[in-house]
């Protein structure tokens, strides 16, 4: 029986690790290589690293840093940020990375997903979608680290991306990001009805119970940033991860 995956999702800005609230107010939380080493020691299921400064700054992925991080990662590792060419993906995989995460460019050029999935296999291509609830109550997709409104409808876009051959969807709630007060369950439920590929959800987790609710709402895997980076009420920076036994309640739901 597969275990439910619990994935720390780390944000990179330039070469430092940061954490945002509602995709804003990026606070420096430490050195990425050091953080990855600690997550590796804690034997996390998988790790996702997203460079939020790459696309916005029109930069290429930081291959040198990705290489150093992959060298510390003895678990599946996904990288996202600034990927716009097949050669970028090839280079990243050669460094020892299993998955690439594509966000803005999947909206700009959905055929890129098809091309990438054909060459590298769907299992290695993750499309991440950043979503905000509008005043009218609809879920709308944003790109460029939440700065650009696309006007795209969530369900339509998910359907399209799946057809293109994406292997997984990484769904981020901009409204819940960094608050640690629980996932947007109606968003998860709506998205899960539109996909058959695995749905990883992120944004809002503060405790293990939140993961359980997300899985019950239709998520296949759960991701969190703040919960694994901050500790206690004062939000002191302290890399932490629950023991495997504590996560057992997420299996067989």
């Amino acid at each position, binding site marked *: 029986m597969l275990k439910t*995956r619990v994935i720390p999702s780390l944000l990179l800005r330039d070469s430092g690790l940061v954490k945002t609230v509602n995709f804003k107010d990026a606070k420096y939380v430490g050195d990425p290589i050091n953080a990855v080493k600690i997550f590796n020691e804690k034997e996390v299921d998988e790790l996702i690293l997203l460079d939020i400064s790459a696309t916005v700054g029109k930069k290429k992925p930081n291959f040198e840093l990705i290489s150093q991080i992959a060298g510390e990662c*003895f678990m599946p590792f996904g990288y996202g940020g600034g990927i716009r060419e097949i050669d970028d993906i090839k280079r990243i995989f050669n*460094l020892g990375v299993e998955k690439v995460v594509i966000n803005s460019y999947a909206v700009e050029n959905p055929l890129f997903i098809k091309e990438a999935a054909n060459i590298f296999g769907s299992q290695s291509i993750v499309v991440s979608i950043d979503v905000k609830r509008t005043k009218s109550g609809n879920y709308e997709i944003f790109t460029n680290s939440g700065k650009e409104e696309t006007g795209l409808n969530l369900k339509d876009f998910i359907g399209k991306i799946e057809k293109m051959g994406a292997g997984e969807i990484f769904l981020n709630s901009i409204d819940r990001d960094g608050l640690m007060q629980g996932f947007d369950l109606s968003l998860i439920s709506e998205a899960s009805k539109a996909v058959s590929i695995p749905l990883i959800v992120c944004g809002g987790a503060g405790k293990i119970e939140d993961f359980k609710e997300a899985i019950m709402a239709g998520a296949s895997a759960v991701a969190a940033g703040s919960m694994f980076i901050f500790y206690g009420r004062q939000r002191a920076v302290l890399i932490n991860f629950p023991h495997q036994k504590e996560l057992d309640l997420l299996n067989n739901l």
Partner: protein
Amino acid sequence: MVVIIDYKTGNLGSILNMFKKIGVEATVSSNVLDIERADKIILSGVGSFDSGIDNLKDAGLIPVLNEMVLVKKIPILGICLGMQLFSKKSEEGKLAGFNWINAETVRFKFDDRETNLKVPHMGWDTINTKRESPLLANMYQEARFYFVHSYHLICENQEDVIATTNHGYEFPSIVQKENIFGVQFHPEKSHKFGIKLFENFVNLC
């Protein structure tokens, strides 16, 4: 010297990273002379069965691998597609495999339409040990491994099956026939459990 066969399919960087971690000299190569000198061989890979066989043929590596494995009895570890290539053939393609293990490669098929089991079988899973193998010597009790695959082996000789994993039904997740070892999961991405398995392969197999 451990030689990791380079046949242009998949991610060998993470296997090298792991050998660096355990302090064992390993090289990635498609050079026949390197392979002839190997005392351990690793055949990893992702992608389709036929593209794997085609790439090995194009690189001219089939004869040297047969010689090293069947005649010189050099230990080889197949990982994921690498293990599937040891079988006779695959539902995924038309080409013949190495036929080193009496097995066929088939796609996951579930009878029950209601099942919500997904293909690929992707994520962390456990193994049920069926037989002793040096590969599993002193393995951790709570061992779990990372899998990503849509196809799996069906072995004709049950004595070749070292461990199984359940995804809808039991399939062979570790096989061994003499010096030929195969794992369906990715030990290079399976934390200390994978490290132990590689150490066993290098030191005990």
